[in-house]
């Protein structure tokens, strides 16, 4: 069947890309797989294009269901490349145009982490004390950038239960030569008075201007607010998700119980399962450092909505 063939093809691309670049973020690898699919398949009509790409996106999000960011990223991709003018009579030219845009955009996204690190570096001053939570690639990149500029600072990182990803952060920071201490998740309130700045990554940026991130982020944000400490979020625009949570229970179940490298607890009622992701409302966030600039938390939505509507 053509349908299963498409699915296998795109998932195959994804896996080979991930194999070649194990450090690449899952949504980016998915985008590259989509571009490759677009390049190697001739299509005749727009509805064929829509159908087949939708199928590919579904296949990718299904096979990598742990990474909810894949689905969000692919939707954004579709939205972006189809913004191009479709006035060409023949679809092949349209497709070429879309491939051009897709490549341009994916390359830009591939540099997003470096862009964020460059923008974030001035916010980390020499001799300061920073608190971070869990493990975030983009936050690590920003720390690296600051260290390469000759800055020395102390980092507190939460242990970040239940997968203890904070230890991974601590290990990598030690390699950079930074003094780092792992603290209990419950010690954040105690340590906050010492801390000058909180930086975290995000699993998702949402329409309210808030973020979805590893459980415990919201606690840190509240403590930071109580102490009037700046709370900065670093995240790629690719992480945008078109939902508007009002309260914690609005986080989609497909996202709430999943974090990388941790077995999902499928037992029991939804009520009994423990959330692994929480929602931090925008009023706790001072600045969002993303690849489209350093913005107030609500602003990312303006930017992303201009793509969607």
């Amino acid at each position, binding site marked *: 069947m053509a349908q299963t063939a498409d699915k296998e093809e795109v998932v195959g691309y994804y896996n080979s890309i991930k194999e070649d670049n194990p450090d690449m973020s899952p949504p980016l690898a998915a985008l590259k797989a989509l571009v490759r699919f677009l390049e190697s398949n001739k299509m005749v009509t727009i509805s064929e294009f829509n159908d087949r790409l939708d199928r590919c996106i579904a296949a990718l999000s299904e096979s990598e269901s742990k990474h909810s960011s894949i689905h969000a990223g692919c939707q954004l991709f579709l939205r972006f490349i189809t913004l191009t003018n479709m006035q060409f009579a023949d679809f092949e030219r349209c497709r070429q145009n879309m491939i051009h845009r897709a490549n341009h955009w994916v390359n*830009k996204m591939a540099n997003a982490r470096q862009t964020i690190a460059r923008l974030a570096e001035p916010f980390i001053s020499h001799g300061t004390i920073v608190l971070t939570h869990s493990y975030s690639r983009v936050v690590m990149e920003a720390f690296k950038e600051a260290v390469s500029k000759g800055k020395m600072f102390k980092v507190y990182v939460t242990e970040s239960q239940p997968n203890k990803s904070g230890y991974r952060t601590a290990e990598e920071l030690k390699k950079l030569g930074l003094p780092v201490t792992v603290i209990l998740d419950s010690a954040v309130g105690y340590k906050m008075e010492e801390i000058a700045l909180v930086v975290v990554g995000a699993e998702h940026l949402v329409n309210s201007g808030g973020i979805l991130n590893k459980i415990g982020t919201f606690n840190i944000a509240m403590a930071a607010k109580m102490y009037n400490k700046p709370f900065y979020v670093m995240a790629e625009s690719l992480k945008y998700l078109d939902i508007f949570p009002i309260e914690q229970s609005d986080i989609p179940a497909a996202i709430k119980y999943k974090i990388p490298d941790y077995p999902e607890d499928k037992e029991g009622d939804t009520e009994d399962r423990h959330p692994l992701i929480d929602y931090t409302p925008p009023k706790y966030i001072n600045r969002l450092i993303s690849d489209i600039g350093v913005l107030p938390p609500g602003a990312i939505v303006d930017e992303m909505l201009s793509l969607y509507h």
Partner: protein
Amino acid sequence: MPGEVDKTDLYDRMENFMNDLRKDERLGSCEVARRTVDLLRRLISQTKWTSVQDLMDQVWEAGKQLMGADPSESRVGNMVRRVLKIIREEFVSGLREDGGIEADGAEAPLDSLSVDYTQPCPNLKATVIESIGELLQEIDGSAENIAQQALEHIHADETIMTFGGSKTVEAFLKNAGRKRKFHVICTEGDPQFGGQTLAKNLAAADINVTLVPNSHVFAMMARVNKVIIGTHTILAEGGLKAPCGIFNMALAAKEHKVPVFVCASTYKLSPEQFRSEVQEGFQKYVDPNVFYPLEEFAGIEGVEFGNVVYEHIDPEYIHLFIFNTGTNAPSYVYRLVKELYHPDDLDLNV
């Protein structure tokens, strides 16, 4: 070199301007903006260039020199970036007209396909000079444009509190004073005491004025309807770099739930973000002699004198910005920054 225009006059002018920046901290903000743009216009009209990139590099170089004269004077940098943006815009629209660039449907934020600035563009000089002329007009008319909005914000029998002697605020209050009766509480704004002059000028324009020292701000705030202030710089996140004393007023206003309005021209809008109190441009100290006559302290040891000029005010203390281009909330400022400056021109300091 044959055909090279003699630029000694330009260099003299730049040197003069830089000297004024270095020594005279009372240079009006409008004048700083105006002189920067004027110098860059002269530079552009006198320079020969091979490509647009070359022109931008030269403007950039000159701009960096001017900015170096006083790093806390963000308005110079703002104007340099505005001029660079004008060059970019005129170049791109020139290319569009010539059909050199394909007009791409949606100008989405992630969609800024890069432009090749090394291409030649024949009629650029004239259009750029013309646009810079428009920018100069905007600068000159900005105080008046702000003042014209006064009646929308000041109503009859209100009590307004203001800080120091901002020319923009003075024009704003006077404009409202033509039609309405209201009361202004001026704070002195020491150590410059600009508030005294403001009080005098307002009284002369037949407006009810009370002059109080800075320390009375909290005590007086209970009877105030709104606070209207000027500022030195507006930062990209919507905060202020403003003369010391304004934060106290903003805090008192917050405690009493009094709205704070900031009158400012867009040339005060800086693409810079607030990072910490010790960042470049915030640490400006001037001669403390103005308020401590040092001879009175002769013989006393172990006392240090300080006179810090600016402090940072977080956007959460501000309700509205009254710009020459319209009225906006602090959360909207990032968007204005985006409109006014090109992202590639932002790290001019580096």
